[in-house]
């Protein structure tokens, strides 16, 4: 079990959200889109070095800016 930010997870890996270290606005935004502590995600890709991260959450595909992704801390097997 490793604790790692969404930015550093490799593509095509599953993970579980441990914490979101952003402000309340970001937290509630993510909450409204179904991303919160305990949620299982799958990282699909990462564009460029400081580019956005694409994830699959449930049946939706979301694109998160690099800064947002860096604030989502997950655990991977």
């Amino acid at each position: 079990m490793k604790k790692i930010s969404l930015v550093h997870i490799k593509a095509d890996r599953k993970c579980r959200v441990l914490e979101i270290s952003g402000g309340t606005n970001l937290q509630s935004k993510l909450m409204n889109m179904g991303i919160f502590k305990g949620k299982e995600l799958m990282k699909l890709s990462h564009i460029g070095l400081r580019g956005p991260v694409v994830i699959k959450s449930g049946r939706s595909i979301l694109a998160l800016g690099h800064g947002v992704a860096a604030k989502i801390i997950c655990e991977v097997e």
Partner: protein
Amino acid sequence: MIRKIYLIGNPNVGKSVVFSRLTGVQVISSNYPGTTVEITMGYLLIGGEKIEVVDLPGTYSLEPTSHAEEAAVNLLKEHPKEEIAVINILDSTNLERNLLLSLQLIEEGFPVILCLNMCDDAGHKGVQIDTNKLEAILRVPVIPTCAVTGAGIKLLIERIREAAPIPRGKLEHEERWKEIGRIIEQVQHLEHRHHSFREILEDASVRPLTGLVMAAGLVYASFKFVRFIGEFIINKVTDPLFFNLYQPVLERLTFHWQEKGFWFHLFIGDLINGKIDFKQSLGVLTTAPYIEFGMVLPYVISFYFILSLLEDIGYLPRLAILLDNILHQLGLHGFAIIPVLLGFGCNVPGIMSTRVLESKRERFIASTIISIGVPCVPLQAMIFGLLGRFGGFYVSGVYLVLFSLILILGIILNRTLTGYSPEFLIEIPPYRFPPLQMLAQKLYFRVKGFLIEAVPVVLIGVLFINILLYLKLFDIVTGIFAPIIQGLFGLPKEAIVALVIGFLRKDVAVGMLMPLGLSAKQLFIAATLLAISFPCVATFIVLWKELGLKDLVKSTLIMIFISIIVGGMLNFVILR
């Protein structure tokens, strides 16, 4: 007693399509979140009663986190709950995420009816939803629909009156998600499907390598197609109509026109070698219709055809992901590419759609970039028409100058403006293949909009210009600006008329350059200046509305400054 019906739902679930079905009011709908930035209203007849229907911008929750969401939620609370009905539209392929808003609406005591849209798509994807069970659990009417084809809409209308508040305890966020998980388990059945070709494409377009290859290919192909279709319409349809049908009629008219005075000058303009020349005569009946119908309209049709196709398929948000890195340098995020692309059609909807961007700073940067560096279709069509005969080098040159300008300007604005630019957080829609009929409707709607706005302005504009020219009133302006125009930009002093007219409409302005017999270099400079300098009056008004007076002045000063620098640089340094 229902007095108002609200349509509410997550972004990109097809609210606008349902709205069009209910009210018959045509609105633009696309396959990306945030197409609707304005609140649209229409009417629906139920049992002989006319009820107002309001299409709200998409929102994920009743606790808004952006301006568009806030606007939607505030409007919903404007009327007493007893007097409204709320149609909550959900994407059946993604029931789980959509149910959050539904539960919130029910908890808040709104009279809700659920509309499970895109149910045909859900079927294709192997998602089965037991609507009766969902209805039993939530105790509100649930109607499966497919708004694109119209299936289920009749039933939806019939059952609107059943919407009533249901007592339900309020939950905390995480509790609510758990509750949704329990509901989903009971009502949704997923069949395992193998990856379809569509899903493989969806996946490839968001990965760095394959995504970039696809993007480059698509952008290139789109550009080629726009030119191909545009030229096809010109060569096969409009030019034959103008030259073989319309010109002989006009020639006969001029033949019988004995006194070639003021009125002749107004309507026919100057004869070139004793004949009417659609590009140079400058009359209300000659050049004006030729500019609009013979040069601009074909490209308006081809541009909006390709843009609508890309929008409805759902490619644009994927392009946004790939461009996020670059746009960050300009103080924007990837999604800003959508307003920019719309701006290539017409700056007005482009600037209006900057509302999807959250901070004021982003909206200022995006609007300024669009009004300065993004030429609209009418202007581009005229640039093709005029510069095209000097070779592709000059046409691509104009784009190159504008593109560099966008980059430089964006980087400078990003470094100097205070404020913040938030990060990008959007949902990527699945690819959808729109029925041709929907596409045709959207194209018709946009082309009609163009004609209604452009034709009267062009006809009256040319009339007005001809009167001023006849009375030689432009000579005063020409005299004042001659040093700048001639000395700095290397253009003949008559070109000032075109630059001034640019404020009215860009296509007419380029039209004014046609009789001047400019060299390739002069045309290049004039066309570039027309693109950068003052936006047309319609864009100006929208800028004012969206940015406020202070930022409008700021944006305008930047514009004047850049026009002078770029015009001078092109004349003295680059094209010397």
